[in-house]
């Protein structure tokens, strides 16, 4: 099981009624790897992450987390998963500390790990933990959502726009923390984001999702080259998107 990839997706399809959101997505994420999922709004990034976490039923295809299929062994797969929920899904009528305690217990832990508590301190969150989540700002909720996803030392960390609303200092702390965890081989990160600076500087790979399909992938050397060049990832994405559009219009 140790040699299994952190995430394996085979032919994943998701449809909402007649509308097909994901069309046969194949993806493999090795252990100790950070993959950034890019794409315009409505491309299917969040849907893909929710399907990975088992929150959506795919029309076809398989998702395996650490070699464990989500469809048939959901609890075992979820024990290996850290999912950063949307900040608005956090329970507003519980305190931040209660959220940590409950989530840790739900993940089968005896207590929230000291590493997560220390990260909360680094976020300057510990002074706010005894307040109700309803009283938190967007950024504070985002921090709490990230902390919850890190509980239980997950094999696969799935984050959706995790840097939205974070102040620059907290954002830097989180990037470094995730990078260190990935470098130690403790977890793999799948991050859906529009923050291209994070992708260029911290991710090992980046994949572009357009209209439900993975159309292009950049590996670490290519990302490093883009970072060094004046062109940057932004232009590269635009070029790929234009090429895909042109080939579709031709066909």
């Amino acid at each position, binding site marked *: 099981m140790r040699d299994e990839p952190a995430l394996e997706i085979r032919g994943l399809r998701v449809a909402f009624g007649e509308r097909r959101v994901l069309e046969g997505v194949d993806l493999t994420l090795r252990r100790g790897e950070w993959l950034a999922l890019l794409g315009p709004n409505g491309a299917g990034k969040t849907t893909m992450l929710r399907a990975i976490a088992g929150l959506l039923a795919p029309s076809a295809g398989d998702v395996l987390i650490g070699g464990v299929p989500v469809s048939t062994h*959901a*609890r075992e797969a979820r024990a290996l*998963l850290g999912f950063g929920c949307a900040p608005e*899904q956090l329970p507003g009528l519980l305190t931040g500390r209660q959220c940590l*305690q*409950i989530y840790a217990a*739900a993940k089968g832990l005896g207590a929230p790990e000291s590493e997560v508590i220390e990260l909360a301190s680094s976020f300057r969150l*510990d002074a706010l*933990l005894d307040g109700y989540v309803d009283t938190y700002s967007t950024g504070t909720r985002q921090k709490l959502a990230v902390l919850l996803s890190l509980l239980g030392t997950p094999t696969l960390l799935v984050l959706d726009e995790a840097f939205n609303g974070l102040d620059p200092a907290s954002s830097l702390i989180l990037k470094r923390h995730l990078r260190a965890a990935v470098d130690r081989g403790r977890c793999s990160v799948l991050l859906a984001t529009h923050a291209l600076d994070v992708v260029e500087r911290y991710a090992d790979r980046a994949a572009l999702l357009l209209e439900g399909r993975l159309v292009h992938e950049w590996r670490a050397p290519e990302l490093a080259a883009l970072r060094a060049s004046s062109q940057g990832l932004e232009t590269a994405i635009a070029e790929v998107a234009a090429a895909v559009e042109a080939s579709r219009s031709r066909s």
Partner: protein
Amino acid sequence: MQSRWLQWRNALRRHPSIYAALIIVPAAFVWGCSRGAARALMQQAAAHWLLTASVFAALCAASVTRARARAQQRQLHSWLAALPVSNRLVVAAVRVPLLALGIILVAVGTAWGAGLSAAATALLLSSIAGAGALGVGIGWYWPHRQAPLIPPSWYTRIRRSRQASRHAWVWGLGTWPLARSQVWGRPRITARQLALVALAMPLGTPAIQALLAMGAALIAAYLLRMLAATVRVAFPAARWLAPTPIGFVRLTCALIWLALLRQLMVIALLLLFVRALPLAVRGTQALTRGAGCWLASLAVSVAACAWAYARSSPDRAALRARRAPIQAGGESSDAG
């Protein structure tokens, strides 16, 4: 001088509870105590004036110290923190001693009217006034521990909370329905419910029956609110915890235990109350009805949790039935 007076008046206007308390509490006191009793009480107080004054001074000092610490803590987070101590802070600090002084003055006045001697009255008033001033002064100037400073800034140091409990505790989930129920049971909403009950009663209803009906309505509303809160919270709770390996039984127990315990306690108290009333419903019949209500609430709560759990992640039900297992790996333990 006029601006000073206006400042004080505005500060007092922000605390209308002082006015209300100064009128209602002494009036209730006078109404509740006979003049003779007030005179006897004040005579005793005058005979032990030193003890009375000491107790009053201690009360004032303790109250002012606490109120001042709280007010200063709030002031730290105010955008007016750089200004000198405001009248508002002073009013907030001395309102309890003022309230106590008002009550005592009314009591002394009542006793004086009932024949308390002028010497005893003067002794009592002077000792109380002196002790109050001394207590307020001690409370205000007593050096107290600096309140923990939690500035919302990146560029200053903060103290860590010392009450950090670090144990995982899934049963804390049970406080969520309670909080939701409290949100729904705000005094304004409860007052409207009671007004509806009062309007529904025919004219000429005896007072005891009206009170019983209102009490019953309050209890029924509480029980229903708790049940509705459990059902309402089950869905977001299941959705929030869906990416974790928590099972159905554990989620359900953690979510509903506290609400059901509260309902059980209220029903038990209600049964004890019913036994003492001359009502048609008594004994075994009441017990059966109470147990029935609680079991119905339990059934509805569990059903809501089951529905929420199934909806929170569709793969649990739909996928497993529809698709063949990908890998041989034994039975799935998702049943919880």
